[in-house]
């Protein structure tokens, strides 16, 4: 039969994550300590994914990227006042620690929790 008028006039919205954009985002970067020839020293973990941030920062960033107001000010400085001032860039804003178990060359073993070794969030700033 016939479609209801509301159905015909509204475009079908596609969820954002289905669009591949080059906006600031977090990416995986997995390394294996075996590949790095470090596995005789680092007993655990076997793999390490520090992640990284990459992407463009839109002009009116606002809070969508967790950016402080200063980011917009810096954008304005770049556009209107002095283009030698760099534009805000996409950088990590939050991290997780990484626990590592190592075998030292004096035959002792060390467990240590290292601060800020895994990026978990990105921001334009």
């Amino acid at each position, binding site marked *: 039969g016939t479609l209801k008028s509301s159905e015909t006039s509204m475009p079908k919205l596609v969820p954002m994550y289905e669009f591949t954009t080059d906006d600031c985002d977090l990416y995986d970067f997995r390394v294996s300590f075996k590949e790095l020839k470090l596995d005789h*020293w680092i007993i655990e973990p076997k793999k390490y994914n520090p992640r990284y941030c990459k992407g463009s920062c839109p002009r009116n960033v606002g809070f969508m990227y967790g950016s402080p107001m200063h980011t917009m000010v810096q954008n304005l400085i770049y556009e209107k006042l002095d283009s030698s001032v760099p534009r805000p860039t996409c950088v990590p804003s939050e991290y997780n620690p990484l626990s590592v178990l190592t075998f030292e060359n004096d035959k*002792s073993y*060390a467990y240590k929790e290292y601060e800020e070794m895994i990026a978990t969030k990105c921001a334009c700033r």
Partner: protein
Amino acid sequence: SSYNFENESVEPDVPLQHGNILSPLLKALSEQNPWGEFTHRTKPDSRYVRYMRRLYKQSSKPYRSPEASHLYNTARLITPREECLKQNREFFMQDISYSLNRVRSQEHLLKSVLLYSFDHNHLSPFSLLCYLDMKEQKSSKDQMCSNHLGIQHSVPLLSFRVHHRWVEVDVTSFLHPLIQAHKKDIHLLINLTCVEDMISRPGGQIHKSPVELTPRSPSLLLYLNDTSEVAYQRRSTQGRMVDLTSNHWDGKSTLWELTSRRRR
């Protein structure tokens, strides 16, 4: 380029000093040997690797169990110096020397235990009553293994249950001043005498024979709080230090048993 880690600049081509992970990571990325060119590669002892892997799994769980809200972000397992063990084996006291070179000034001691490994043929956990006698030896500069007697420490009868092959004997109160003095080596005379606990066994028989401890000398396990920038700073939720050892071997729900039970 050089990186300034904790007030010391580390050149990529300088051999790694204290297990700092980032410098060798950079070296590995620039295809250099993280331990320096001429260091021979000793193989880790699989028993200690198993033990430390358990500690790693327990400690690095994203959400530690509430009762395990301890502050340590570093644990070091230091094996005794071989060269001293050979010299004094005929004494009933074990002369043991540990190198504390790796313990950094910003690593504050929270707890230290002597880690004994048992070889026994018991199938189920059993209890021991032990008496620990420990003396510190003063080392003279020119001798690494010396026999001057220094501070004495005797721990009265200990009672602990033996799980798997390891027993941790808490010696924090004795070692704390030595380690906080940032000594590079500590020399101890240690004697641990144990008899099996007199708990009657199912079926009524009581087992009296003393348990033979392995001739292996104990390793030293230090739980430390590293306050340097590199180390992850844990926020104490309860503000007090709980018994660090209990959550490894409390036997109630250790990771080890849970996984084996589930697998079974």
